[in-house]
């Protein structure tokens, strides 16, 4: 069992007060907070080995390079990737997807080809594919979402054609919390001879991710959503694809030989890491992953299940509250609507009580619109949240309703 008080003491920002009240942070889906080990690692990096990696012969640069490559090892182990050269550091989940959409697109997508995404995707896993489809004259096919917030697997199976080039689906829905059956989704893609990208931005922080078990061809996430720093992300890709794909960005370190006429590129993973990477961000993120491992991924999963169950029961008990997204497998995200109360009013008032939720389309307009609304109120929890905070949320919602009537 996790000692939540001890855990909370590791996250300095959780002690913040807003408008004189204790902060109740239920916006973890947008970004997570950072434990002291991460903050200390960043401080250590800047004060003891800040120096450009891969570049210098000198001791500081060597130290920085060792730390940076060590972070790559940590990521590889965390998601059980086969090869360390298949781990590419990017500036975030969005950049990871854009990299694949561009580079995979350049190599494998032509006019008339098809790309499959789902109705459940975050904008980050919609817009890059729309852009590449537009550039290449390809067609976007959509897996619909059922009323409980799960994917329509039957329709999914029917979407494949001989022109399907790639599938891109989220592991976990940021708006509804639905955990998708990514192993099965991957198997179906592979049965059709099609590679698959899984957007892990909302999955990595909540449980075990094993890319070999899933067998996906690409997997990605952001550091800031997994208790790490901003400005860093990961792309895992199978080398059989990464080796074939042209680089996305050009610059230092990703090259082998440069002449003004022609340039040859470095090997993996460097081919996809142009310029000075956020090596300090990478090292900080690795510290966050180590922190999760040592806290216990299993325990975190159990704790979050408890939080979700408790919060679901509590909120279901409030009259006029409708939960959107009732899949059997969820991470602790609850999106809901209040009868007769505009989400924005609710958000504003909850804020003044110190309760941070997110309101709006959750960067998933198509999904939100599919549920017949412009936006929802989303409470997204993580293991450092408490039952008392859920009580505060429920009480806050009741108060909002009273004020509005």
């Amino acid at each position, binding site marked *: 069992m996790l000692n939540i008080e001890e855990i909370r003491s590791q996250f300095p920002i959780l002690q913040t007060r807003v408008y004189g009240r204790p902060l109740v942070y239920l916006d973890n889906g947008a970004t997570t907070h950072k434990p002291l080990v991460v903050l200390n690692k960043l401080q250590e990096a800047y004060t003891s080995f800040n120096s450009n990696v891969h570049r210098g012969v000198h001791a500081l640069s060597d130290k920085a390079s060792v730390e940076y490559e060590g972070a790559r090892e940590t990521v590889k182990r965390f998601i059980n990737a086969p090869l360390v050269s298949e781990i590419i550091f990017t500036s975030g989940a969005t950049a990871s997807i854009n990299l694949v959409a561009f580079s995979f697109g350049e190599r494998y997508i032509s006019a008339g080809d098809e790309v499959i995404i789902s109705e459940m995707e975050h904008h980050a896993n919609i817009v890059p594919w729309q852009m590449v489809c537009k550039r290449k004259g390809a067609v976007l096919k959509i897996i619909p979402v059922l009323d409980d917030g799960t994917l329509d697997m039957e329709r999914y199976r029917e979407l494949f054609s001989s022109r399907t080039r790639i599938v891109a689906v989220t592991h976990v829905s940021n708006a509804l919390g639905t955990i998708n059956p990514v192993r099965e989704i991957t198997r179906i893609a592979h049965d059709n001879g099609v590679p698959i990208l899984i957007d892990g931005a909302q999955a990595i922080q909540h449980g075990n991710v094993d890319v070999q078990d899933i067998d996906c061809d690409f997997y990605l996430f952001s550091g800031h959503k997994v208790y790490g720093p901003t400005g860093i992300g990961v792309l895992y890709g199978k080398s059989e694809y990464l080796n074939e794909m042209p680089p996305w960005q050009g610059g230092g370190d990703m090259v082998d030989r440069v002449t003004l006429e022609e340039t040859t590129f470095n090997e993996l993973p460097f081919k996809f890491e142009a310029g000075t990477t956020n090596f300090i961000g990478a090292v900080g993120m690795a510290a966050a992953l180590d922190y999760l491992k040592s806290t216990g991924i299993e325990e975190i999963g159990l704790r979050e299940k408890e939080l979700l169950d408790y919060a679901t029961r509590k909120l279901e008990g409030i009259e006029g509250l409708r939960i959107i997204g009732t899949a059997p497998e969820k991470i602790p995200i609850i999106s809901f609507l209040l009868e007769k109360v505009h*989400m*924005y*009013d609710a958000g*504003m008032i909850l804020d*003044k009580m110190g309760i941070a939720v997110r309101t*709006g389309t959750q960067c998933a307009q198509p999904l939100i619109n599919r549920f017949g609304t412009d936006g929802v109120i989303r409470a997204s929890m993580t293991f450092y949240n408490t039952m008392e905070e859920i009580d505060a949320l429920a009480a806050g919602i009741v108060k909002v309703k009273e*004020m509005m009537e």
Partner: protein
Amino acid sequence: MTIEEKQEKIVEEFSVFDDWMDRYNFLIDLGKDLDVLSEKDKNRDYLIEGCQSKVWLKPDLREGRVYFSADSDAIITRGIVALLVRVLSGHTPAEIMDADLSFIDRIGLRQNLSPTRSNGLLAMVKQMKLYAIAYSSKMKG
């Protein structure tokens, strides 16, 4: 009353609240009291779109003065809209163009106006001033 006097009045009214909930309750009441726009007027032409709540603003020029009517789908936004309408409605284009809306700061609504809060409020003040400019040049023209 001048725009200045109206602002003073509002600041005075808000001064009795020392708690955010009371202030919001007051805004909610103001929102409830604001005349609603007809469904017909809630159209694209009058829409000022923020990210999270919609605001419709309809101007009307009568005898050299601008009269605003407005609405929003969120009640707190309606309350803020009501304040803006109360302060600016019935004044000349020139007065509206020159108005320094200090009351927003003084009653603690500044943060609701920050460009980073996507509630369209800043857009609303801007739109009111734009209408005033348009009428003003029409009157001169």
